[in-house]
């Protein structure tokens, strides 16, 4: 078709809002500048869940903060607790007992499955596969009940504290968890046929939102988003913490770097987490589950990274010798995913691909805003 010079002169770019209504994007707003069906630019406007957590922590003691960090990401509180208690222990110069490390790892892996299953629900909802969302949210309930049995809380467990965990695992927890894992393992086949091998899903996910390993690393990608480009990077393997040195697992990687490979990485990680949990539940070390920590921490600086479901989660803490931190910085994985990778991948995409690209990155707005 010949281009019409008159028409080009009068062309005004149209700004299409993506979000911030929850079902579309989570609490995140992206202003999409479009030319016809094509996205020219996407400008992110975060801040809908900004609570100033880093500042709030400066006013609270270490024990109070271990409850506050749950709120950083609603979907996987255990990873945030894991990062926080470890950074405090690093500054205080103590180490949690072996049993506590093992319990923490068990809960963190349950949290990873919880987060990935919730993501399955949201991603299928975003692509119009309503039944997938209902089934996945139903399966999420089983893990939430396990959370309640072990910690007393369903969504916000407030379970890890510097020096160990708040209470020991209740009797019968191992059996209940193993039963739940067997059920989830069988459900994975259902997810495969219903969602991951669904023709609509595959067509909409493959070949969109592609970046290669070099671009992904430059943009700050971590976790399944980076592993989707073939980079074998996992903090659990690279700098093992808690009980991870004792378990065997594979790091899931895919080569293509498109939205579908990121999806498959997460699907594979659920199976790996189930295998990690089975290994840990078989021999949980006996002994103390908590040691005492002094309320004051010595002066110092510590940086600790752990692998959250979404990627690298780091805490930087500065202590000035009091019982409160002088400064805490939280490096949430979603910060880079949403604010630096998403606008990059959206450029040049079709409008209809925006939800597929966005949810393939699995962003968590509360973790991004803090």
């Amino acid at each position, binding site marked *: 078709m010949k281009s019409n010079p008159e028409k080009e002169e009068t062309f005004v770019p149209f700004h299409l809002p993506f979000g911030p209504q929850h079902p579309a994007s989570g609490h995140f707003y992206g202003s999409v500048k479009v030319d016809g069906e094509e996205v020219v630019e996407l400008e992110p406007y975060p801040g809908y869940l900004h609570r100033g957590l880093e500042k709030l922590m400066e006013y609270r003691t270490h024990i109070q903060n271990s409850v506050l960090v749950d709120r950083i990401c609603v979907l996987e509180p255990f990873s945030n607790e894991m990062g926080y208690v470890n950074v405090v222990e690093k500054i205080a110069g103590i180490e949690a007992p072996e049993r506590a490390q093992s319990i923490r790892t068990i809960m963190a892996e349950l949290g990873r499955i919880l987060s990935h299953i919730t993501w399955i629900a949201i991603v299928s909802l975003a692509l119009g596969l309503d039944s997938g969302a209902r089934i996945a949210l139903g399966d999420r309930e089983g893990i939430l009940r396990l959370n309640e049995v072990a910690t007393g809380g369903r969504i916000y467990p407030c379970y890890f504290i510097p020096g160990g965990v708040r209470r020991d695992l209740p009797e019968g927890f191992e059996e209940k968890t193993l039963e739940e894992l067997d059920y989830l393992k069988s459900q994975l086949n259902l997810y495969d046929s219903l969602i991951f091998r669904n023709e609509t899903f595959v067509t909409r996910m493959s070949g969109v939102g592609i970046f290669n390993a070099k671009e992904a690393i430059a943009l700050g990608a971590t976790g399944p988003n980076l592993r989707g480009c073939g980079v074998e990077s996992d903090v659990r393997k690279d700098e093992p913490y808690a009980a991870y040195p004792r378990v065997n697992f594979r790091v899931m990687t895919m080569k293509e770097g498109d939205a579908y490979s990121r999806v498959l990485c997460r699907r594979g990680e659920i199976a790996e987490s189930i295998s990690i949990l089975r290994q840990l539940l078989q021999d949980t070390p006996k002994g103390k589950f908590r040691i005492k920590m002094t309320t004051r921490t010595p002066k110092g600086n510590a*940086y600790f990274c752990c692998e959250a479901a979404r990627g690298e989660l780091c805490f930087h803490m500065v202590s000035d010798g009091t019982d409160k931190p002088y*400064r805490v910085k939280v490096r949430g994985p979603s910060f*880079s995913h949403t604010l630096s990778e998403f606008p990059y991948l959206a450029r040049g995409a079709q409008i209809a691909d925006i939800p597929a690209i966005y949810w393939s990155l699995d962003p968590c707005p509360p973790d991004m805003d803090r």
Partner: protein
Amino acid sequence: MSEEIISSLKSEFADSILKVFLEDKKILVTVKKEGFYDVLSSLKGMGFDHLSDVTCIDYIKEQEFEIFYHLWAHKKKLRVSVKVRIPRDSSSIRSVTDLWTGAQIHERENHEMFGVNFPGNPDLSPLFLEDWEEIPPLRKDFDTRKFVRRKYYGEE
């Protein structure tokens, strides 16, 4: 491998590096403001391709900001933290966006929360806060509780 990096940094940047040592499998480099960019770009060349985070700390007693660059090398599996101090008034430090594209958004956040200027960063517009007229909120002289009492309860 970390010893090699430490010794090569020491010999190459003898003037600008104040301190460099290994702490818990992680290299910690303290560097003067003048040479910080060269040190970072040399580290980038050594394979530290992932900028994990940029942290700013407000040392109000010393009237200084401390800025940490946390780096990770995917191939070497090593972590390096580079810290640099800048004066609190007229705080400004060269952007590292040209080394790591992902630095753009970290610098933008620090600009908003601390008021540190990053010349060379293409976009330092407000990120999280809407219509913010107070001093940058993560500075130590900003009191959250006083602000809430004044803003929402009308107390002075």
